[in-house]
């Protein structure tokens, strides 16, 4: 049972990573990356590494995509100088 879960999550990691690279739009890529973070966290948990899973969840699926989204926003904001508060 556990083995099947490992195989499935490994394959999911491979697929999501490929999707993250194939998505050429950074905003959408950030979403895929956060999914990748989630899938990795699941994989790490079934590999009996809850510590790493937890930090991957916090970093990979929250922090990194958030930073990317903020950067996308900043880059998009160039050219349209006036913008609202959020």
């Amino acid at each position, binding site marked *: 049972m556990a083995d099947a879960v490992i195989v499935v999550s490994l394959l999911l990691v491979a697929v999501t990573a490929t999707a993250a690279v194939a998505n050429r739009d950074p905003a959408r890529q950030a979403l895929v990356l956060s999914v990748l973070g989630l899938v990795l966290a699941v994989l790490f948990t079934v590999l009996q590494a809850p510590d790493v*899973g*937890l930090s991957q969840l916090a970093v990979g699926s929250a922090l990194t995509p958030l930073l990317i989204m903020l950067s996308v926003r900043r880059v998009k904001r160039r050219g349209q*100088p006036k913008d609202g508060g959020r």
Partner: protein
Amino acid sequence: MSRRTRLWLVAVSGTGLAALLVAACLELPPFGGSSHPYGERAVRAALARHTANTIASVNFDQRAYDTLGEMSILFAAVLGCVVLLRQARDEHRARPEPAEVDLPVRRYALIVLPVAVVGGLYVIAHGQLSPGGGFQGGVVAATALHLLYLGADYRALERVRPVGLFEVADSLAVSAYLVLGLAGVLAGTAFLANTLLPYGTFNTLSSGGNVPLLNAAIGMEVACAVVVLLARFLDQAVEIEQGNGKDDKDDKDDKESEKENGKENGA
């Protein structure tokens, strides 16, 4: 180099590298094997020092010197981001307009926020017992604080988040970690030696000697570092604007950012 040439290069060399790596994978010990000499030694050492979570023991005791390096990377990256994302000569700050937030979003954020912050602190505190620790809890607590941006608005966030203070706290946490390490040298044992404090009762909050202290220092460092990082990026995304043609003079910039920094805004 044209895109086509580059694609060819990547294809050819990627194939070569892939062949090499796959050949190496076939030589690796089979997945799930049982030979982990270092791992078994680490478990024994952790038990000898009354640390229930072996990973915490490896991170904060056996390989605490690695963690020092890692913490310095985080510290350096924060310092680097502060320097790189400073206000350039030709930029000025624009106060973002306060915006209306949907009530459900606001409620959700304001309810989740304290839960998440407390959860983060809990995860930090129990690092040497259960999965979690300074890193995980620090990131969670710091990210949670930014729910305030979602729930209320940017100015509310700015009031509870004096970035300067967090920077200072960040460096103080780094110093604390270093001082704990240096205590070992002063006591005549080795740097970062976990021999000064009693190891305590197995599986309690104060067990493990130095481990909870180092863990707390890391938790504080990570939390502050992530807050500062996110603050710098939010600054860029929301406040700093290119000085389209106006080319502000330095002193004016100074005044504006001084205002930002003094937090005397009455919003």
